[in-house]
């Protein structure tokens, strides 16, 4: 029998309350497979505050602490400190927050945590809008996207500001490990979580997690769209370990419009805007390659 590339143990049991084709459920499942049962999760307001199930049920087999929206960074520091004073240094502490809870309302507490370099892993599952409240734009929403607060209308009021690069913000904190990952590449995702958990200090992983409901897409295309996000360079996969950047996937480039056209949220985007965005993504990709090249000289 071939060797399994993904741990067999399931710590996310059947019965979650997510939508059909939810990328965030895949993110949780893979993260827990990597982290194992000696893990405590801290979850703020987000889809995952509801998806484990209504009290007294939960589909997660690890302890969970639910917290106010903006407190994940502080909450995981508190759990870590309490475990350490009780001699439980071996227990993993993972914050599991959405993109709004990370890029927007939670960024202050996250910055504080990273500044202290507390020994925790922060996962940002990125579905590019406030999905739990019903698809409002967040700092992580990309240019051109329809959301209920960027409703297009007759004036083209789609999202105008670029997707906030939270990974870059975390790199600027000089924490020991920052990575991006995708639910389309579980082996890569699990390897990154394992690596992060082997390092002491604050670790940050941003996981691209498609949301069929909010993206107006076919729920059967979650993995395909997540793959195209990487190949179109809309969401490149990389890791930065002690300042050394490695692009962990360099697939053959695919046109941005193919990625966008699978999602109803981009349907209204004019050709010129798509071309402009593609140029920006290509430039960003060149910049990543340059940063990777520069990293090779890091002592």
């Amino acid at each position, binding site marked *: 029998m071939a060797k399994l590339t993904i741990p067999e143990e399931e710590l996310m049991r059947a019965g979650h309350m997510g939508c059909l084709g939810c990328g965030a459920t895949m993110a949780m499942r893979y993260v827990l497979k990597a982290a194992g*049962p*000696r*893990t*405590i999760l*801290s979850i703020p307001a987000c889809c995952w*505050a*509801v998806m*484990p*199930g*209504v*009290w007294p049920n*939960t589909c*997660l*087999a*690890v*302890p*969970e*602490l*639910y*917290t*106010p929206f*903006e*407190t994940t*960074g*502080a*909450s*995981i*520091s*508190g*759990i870590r*400190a*309490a*475990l*350490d*004073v*009780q001699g439980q240094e071996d*227990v993993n502490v993972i914050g599991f927050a959405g993109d709004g809870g990370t890029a927007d309302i939670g960024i*202050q*507490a996250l*910055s*504080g945590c990273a*500044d*202290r370099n*507390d020994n925790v892993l922060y996962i940002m599952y990125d579905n590019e809008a406030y999905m739990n409240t019903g698809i409002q734009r967040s700092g992580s929403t990309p240019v051109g996207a329809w959301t209920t607060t960027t409703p297009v209308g007759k004036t083209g009021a789609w999202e105008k500001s670029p997707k906030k690069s939270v990974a870059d913000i975390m790199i600027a904190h000089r924490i020991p490990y920052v990575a991006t990952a995708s639910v389309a590449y579980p082996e890569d995702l699990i390897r990154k979580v394992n690596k992060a958990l082997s390092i002491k200090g604050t670790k940050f992983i941003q996981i691209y997690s498609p949301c069929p409901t909010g993206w107006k897409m076919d729920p059967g295309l979650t993995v395909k769209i997540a793959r195209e996000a990487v190949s179109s360079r809309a969401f490149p996969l990389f890791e930065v370990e002690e300042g050394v950047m490695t692009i962990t996937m360099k697939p053959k480039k695919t046109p941005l419009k193919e990625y966008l056209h699978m999602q109803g949220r981009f349907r209204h985007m004019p050709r010129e805007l798509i071309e402009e965005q593609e140029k920006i993504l290509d430039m960003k990709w060149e910049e990543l390659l340059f940063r990777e090249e520069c990293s090779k000289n890091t002592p």
Partner: protein
Amino acid sequence: MVKDIMTGNKATAYGAMLARAQVVAAYPITPQTTIVERIADLIAEGKMKAKYIMVESEHSAMAATIAASNTGARAFTATSSHGLALMHEVLMWAAGARTPAVLVNVNRAMAPPWSVYADHQDAMAQRDTGVMQFWAENNQEILDSVIIAYKVAENKDILLPAMINQDAFYLSHTSEPVDIPDQELVDQYLPPFETEVKLDVDNPKGFGSFIMPPQYMEFRGHMARSMDKAREVIRKADREWEELTGRSYGGLMDMYRCEDAEFILFGAGTMMSTAKDVVDELRKEGRKVGIARLRVFRPFPVDEVRYLADRVHAIGVLDRTYTFGYGGPLFNEMNSQMYNHGKRPPTKNYIIGVGGRDVRPKHIRGIFDDLEKVSKEGYGEEGEIHWWGLLDGKTPEEEL
């Protein structure tokens, strides 16, 4: 037991150390700052075995405190004024999560205009959060209260957070003699924090998960019952502390010369010390006066208020803040506790000492005179609420 001269803030830090707080998460704010400095010193010197999380805000301070407590550690934090206001959301969370953490708040006025001086609005605005509130009169009481508050909060029938209030500068930065109890004595009174309800990888459970309406109300009802039960637990904790140290703070209310008093003043904090001195003077003059100093605001001392209602001619309520609707918070609370009670003596609200303005013996004397007049002649045109000493254009010398 060692006697030392210390500020209220040092007494706070020593209280946290003697209570063996294991995790401290705090953010500096005037006039609380020297608490966190002192705790950092005690940890750096190896005298206090705790992990100090240097958070980036008070909101995070309380969030980290809750998480640490829910992971089974004895957790502590301290703040003041705007810091407490920023914590508001998380104070509610701490109570809902049944977190037995202790917070010391240095009572300071809310801006604008900017002020760093004593005022009770910060704490009174947290009335409905589900956090127990103790109010200290002197530095000894602050130190003792930190220890007593953990004893009450960690009681399995209670499991609610507790806040100890101390007046800005009057206590926080004023040195007084304080008995530092022996660690063995404190350990005897306050055993290590142990709870089965915590984040534990060997017994995984979810804390604070989503809930439907039929169950939510049950959780709130249980919380209310615990808060009610805290009255007796606080009285017992106070008696036990007295047995060990000889010091009692009267449970929920500190009654001073109230036994045969006809006129009493009810209020909280340091101005009540001044009021007690005035009572001593007035007693020498043959006047039957007393002081009911609020020791615990949440849960509210209902029985104590009704005990007084049965005995006195009139009650003056001193509020060091206002609700900006009608009346000071203590005035409204006291009145509502007497309404369904058989006897209701007249009460009058005196708003005084707001934003750190001095409360002097002559003010207290004037208030007692006014209260006696009210009991004989009624409120008059002025009504039942009096901002005592409001200048309204007069020069300060005339009034202060």
